């Protein structure tokens, strides 16, 4: 089976700090990583390939530097990678991004499964995967914990608020993946060296059939009006008592006073 995994290179948001003087994000020195949910999606893809054979292609939209993330994917089981890069794509919201990516998918060929991380950790929207499915006219299963093939059907273990459900669908389908029990594997020295040597092609708007009025900032229906850092809470009440019982009694009386319980 042929699997496409969509990957985004993102800043490691756990490393981002806020400059409280200027109230802006300190991005300098923040490492760029493969979006963690995309890494989980790739790992599920590699496991399917190991079981059923086939190929794994990585598609990413981003600047030239994103090739570093693509090489990382090649070192942990992907067969080939393609970077989609064009200044005309800059400023795209999820509708425009999913339109561009799905136009590229049509160009790249036929895939049995298209896997995405459930969301990127910078934008946190969880919209690009389902929107790609809509552009491509494919069924979707979101929040996948595991994927298996059985008698030609795709069986997905889908996370719900209270547990999980087993969903059956047919290929081709788009599946978005959450954090699963299958930790992304590590590269070996050998696979890393091979990935470093790989030549990753860049395709642009000229290589795909696309209506550029639906791409980029201008083609995006949502507009960012402003961004700001969340207000810092005033540090709260500190309770430090000699015994646990005293601390607990003090807390309950404070909560009662504040009418919280």
């Amino acid at each position, binding site marked *: 089976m042929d699997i496409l995994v969509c990957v985004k290179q993102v800043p490691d948001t756990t490393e981002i700090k806020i400059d409280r003087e200027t109230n802006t994000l300190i991005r300098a020195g923040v490492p760029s990583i493969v979006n963690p949910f995309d890494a989980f999606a790739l790992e599920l893809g590699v496991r399917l390939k190991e079981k059923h054979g086939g190929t794994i292609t990585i598609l990413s939209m981003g600047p030239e530097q994103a090739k570093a993330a693509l090489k990382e994917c090649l070192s942990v089981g992907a067969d080939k990678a393609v970077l989609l890069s064009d200044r005309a794509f800059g400023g795209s919201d999820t509708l425009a991004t999913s339109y561009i990516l799905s136009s590229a998918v049509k160009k790249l060929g036929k895939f049995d499964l298209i896997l995405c991380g459930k969301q990127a950790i910078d934008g946190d929207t969880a919209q690009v995967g389902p929107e790609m499915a809509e552009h491509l006219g494919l069924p979707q299963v979101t929040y996948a914990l595991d994927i298996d093939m059985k008698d030609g059907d795709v069986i997905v273990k889908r996370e719900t608020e209270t547990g999980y459900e*087993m969903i*059956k669908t047919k290929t081709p389908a788009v599946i978005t993946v959450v954090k699963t029990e299958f930790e992304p594997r590590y590269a070996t020295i050998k696979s890393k060296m091979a990935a470093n040597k790989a030549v990753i092609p860049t395709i642009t708007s000229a290589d795909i059939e696309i209506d550029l009025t639906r791409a980029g900032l201008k083609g995006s229906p949502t*507009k960012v009006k402003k961004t700001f850092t969340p207000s810092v809470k005033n*540090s709260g009440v500190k*309770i430090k008592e000699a015994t646990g019982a005293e601390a607990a009694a003090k807390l309950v009386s404070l909560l009662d006073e504040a009418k919280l319980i």
Partner: protein
Amino acid sequence: MNTFEDYKNLWVYIETEDGAAKSVGLELLNPGRMLADANKEKLVAVVIGQNVEEVAKKAIAYGADEVLLIEGTEYKDYSTDAYANALNKLAIKYKPSVILIGATNNGRDVGPRLSCRLKTGLTADCTALAIDQESGNVAWTRPAFGGNLMATILCPNTRPQIGTVRPGVFKKNEPDYNRNAEIIRENITTPASDIRTTILEVVKTVGENAVNLEEAEIIVSGGRGLGKPENFAIIKGLANALGAAVGASRAAVDAGWIPHAHQVGQTGKTVGPKIYIACGISGAIQHLAGMSSSDTIIAINKDEDAPIFDIADYGLIGDLFEIVPALTEEIKKYKNTK
């Protein structure tokens, strides 16, 4: 400039589960009223399911001026294809100006499908809603970068304006079962052949009696400080006394002490309860991203410098093994006296 004269009224999609309304849809009738009134529009609830007229009546009690009701066997359980089809056809017919959808798993599954079909903008997982004074558009505010940055988004050139809104951010109105409003039944069907997914099995791993995290008013969470899986018993003890749900940090989940369904944080659930009690959780940014919008945060930790204390309204410095059981007893005592 577009005037969108044809587009009017604010819709709140009332998600159902097992035939009952999920809390978030009823919550959204509250900000929905504010936004609808600001633009002198009707507040319309949209209910889809099988035998869900009670949900429609509930939506009226919680503030809807009108309900659009779609019922059919194909809508008994949620499926992307059937629900996207129903919402899309309904939106084309009625042309709402705004649609609010709860940012649950299914809400975030159908939202992008709908907005993409309608070729309009969708803003994800909003935590604040307002009307932009200059343009009259909805100003959707949402966290990004793991909660490090807030962004306010507009959808100025297309209609409807659609957003998913985080559960627990808004409080439900007091229900008034004497309110009257019209329930309009719409006959929109989805042929079985158009539904390309089948639910084979539904498994609930969060205990039968446990409240689910997204809907919980109080959450008690445990982290690495618990030391071993058996110690979650003291977290559950406090949760039971409070009628709370049990959450966990990534460290506790990764250690295998509790299933991932309980994880709060960037790779787990995003919650916004009235009270969040973090026990033995240091407060890594990825955990804070999932719970910092809680109304009141209580932290119990022996490390005075733990970052969780920076956002805690009440910080208890000390041994959780002493404090948590004592707190459980205090709460029981308190409840008995009330």
